[in-house]
């Protein structure tokens, strides 16, 4: 399954893009698998991913959270609002 992972803030600046495309097997499409695929797909983000969480449909997800093709998926790094 093809998943477009949205990037924001410092992660988007590091990647030079606001989205990274990854592929995960349909039967293994979970947030954890997407993170692993992101690690492989974007070497420039690897050092940051340990402090990141995946969000699915605007809510933080666990590694086991299932993902389907219509979901909005984003990687959320350390935040700095306020």
């Amino acid at each position, binding site marked *: 399954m093809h998943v477009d992972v949205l990037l924001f*803030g410092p992660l988007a600046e590091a990647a030079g893009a606001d989205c990274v495309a990854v592929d995960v097997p349909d039967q293994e499409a979970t947030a954890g698998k997407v993170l692993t695929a992101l690690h492989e797909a974007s070497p420039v983000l690897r050092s940051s991913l340990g402090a990141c969480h995946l969000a699915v449909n605007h809510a933080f997800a666990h590694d086991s959270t299932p993902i389907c093709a219509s979901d909005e998926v984003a990687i959320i790094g350390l*935040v700095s*609002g*306020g």
Partner: protein
Amino acid sequence: MESTSVAIITGPLRSRVDEPTQVGDAAGAVVTFLGVVRGEEGGTLIAGLEYSVYEPMATRVLEHLARETIERFGVLRVNVEHSQGLVPTGQCSFGLTISGAHRRETLDAMDWYIERMKQDAPIWKRAVAERLSQATDMVKAKHG
């Protein structure tokens, strides 16, 4: 009337203070915090901060925190606004107003909300260099 309101605003916020009448005569404390962009960041003069916001998720998180604040502290109303995009030095980028029956729980709620927002809300800021701003102003002046 809704007991919470959340808004993401493009650019600086106009400071807005709740009228106590919004919660009738139940509120004995109305506390407003305004976050203002400082003129320096890490010892360097800056022109402002550029806020990047994952808007649908940020709205959801800020709203969830507002409701949790009411449940946890028993306050009456939570209003929050946060900027996205460029906010120049000296301008307001974050506004939080909490109304409660008494001072103590209202001040505690204020502190708790801000700490949690800084942990959970998908909002990022980047300093805009003073020199870049001056260069931009010069270009604008040159080209009218």
